[in-house]
């Protein structure tokens, strides 16, 4: 700075100073205003950042920013629900299937049992010959029930006792004559109630007074005989449900068949006698 300039500065008036001060205040005011604007802008940007952060979080949750992704995500959730429903339905069907299978086996078993009962009843009434009826009863007991040792006893009214008329697996003579009410067999016959010994298949020493099964043969309530089982076949461990059904069937149908055969035999004999008598009269 030259000497002349320094001199000029020293000569500035108060008016100039006032003007400078006012300019400074103007500038300060503008800076303050600008700062305020910046602060407001900053605040707006901060809000916008927050909004974008929230938007980002939301989009991430909904499957990204892509609307297609969000749609697919919703579809995925629907398919998951459908899959669970199908699985539940599948389990339900599986349970039903098991139930049907169980019922099928029951019906199959029942059919098998009915077939055996049919065979037995069909056979019992296929003849009016007493010996054949007794053979058929024996065949049913061997083949359908699976008994190895047994006897058929018939009631002798005069003696009030059951007499052996057929035996299998044991000599006929070895079977006892049983008075009604005597021992297991006699009591069972007198009461007209089946007797079953649930334990063992009769593998122990044969005791003719201790049967495995005693089935009174009855017509209505009248006992005409009894079937007495002592031992089952080696491969048959115990009686099954069908066996009890067969014994019940035998109790009624075998008695009827025996009674019919006896009546028929008697009528044939009487017919022959009458015919002979008539022949005598007419010749």
């Amino acid at each position, binding site marked *: 700075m030259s000497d002349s300039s320094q001199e000029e500065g020293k000569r500035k008036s108060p008016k100039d100073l006032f003007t400078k001060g006012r300019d400074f205040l103007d500038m300060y005011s503008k800076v303050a205003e600008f700062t305020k604007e910046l602060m407001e802008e900053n605040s707006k940007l901060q809000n916008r950042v927050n909004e974008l952060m929230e938007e980002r979080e939301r989009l991430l949750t909904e499957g990204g920013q892509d609307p297609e992704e969000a749609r697919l995500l919703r579809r995925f959730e629907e398919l998951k629900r459908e899959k669970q429903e199908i699985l539940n339905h599948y389990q339900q069907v599986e349970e039903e299937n098991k139930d049907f299978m169980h019922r099928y086996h029951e019906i199959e078993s029942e059919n098998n049992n009915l077939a055996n009962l049919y065979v037995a009843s069909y056979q019992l009434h296929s003849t009016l010959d007493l010996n054949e009826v007794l053979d*058929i009863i024996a065949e049913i007991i061997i083949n359908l029930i699976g008994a190895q040792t047994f006897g058929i006893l018939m009631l002798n009214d005069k003696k009030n006792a059951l007499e052996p008329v057929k035996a299998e697996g044991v000599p006929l003579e070895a079977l006892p004559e049983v008075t009604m009410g005597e021992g297991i067999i006699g009591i069972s016959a007198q009461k007209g109630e089946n007797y079953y010994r649930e334990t063992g298949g009769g593998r122990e020493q044969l005791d003719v007074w201790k049967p495995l099964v005693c089935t009174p043969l009855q017509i209505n309530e009248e006992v005409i005989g009894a079937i007495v089982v002592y031992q089952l076949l080696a491969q048959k461990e115990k009686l099954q449900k069908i066996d009890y059904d067969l014994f019940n069937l035998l109790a009624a149908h075998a008695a009827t068949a025996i009674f019919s055969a006896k009546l028929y035999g008697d009528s044939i004999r009487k017919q022959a006698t009458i015919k002979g008598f008539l022949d005598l009269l007419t010749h």
Partner: protein
Amino acid sequence: MRQLLVFALRPMTGLVVEEASDGLAGLKKIQTQTYDLAMVDINMPLMDGLKLISLIRQDEKNKDIPVIIISTESGMDVKEKADALGVNAYITKPIMARNVLNTVKSLLEAENG
């Protein structure tokens, strides 16, 4: 056994069923007539079932006829003898009628192709 299923098989299957009272009678029938299947009990009077089957297998006319054994015997030795004779089915007593019927049906179906 000789009678039990005879009458039952007839109405249940529509088959023509004939019976023989013993092994010899069975052999005579099978040699003089034509059958599609034989059902044999092991324990029979006059001739046991295994002997009858061995004679059936030696007969040119009947050597391939399906044979079912129905027996009270469940021992392996009897089954092995039956297998050796080419027995097609072995049913142990007590029998289930439907089991017998199903066996008869399946053997006849196999026989008739």
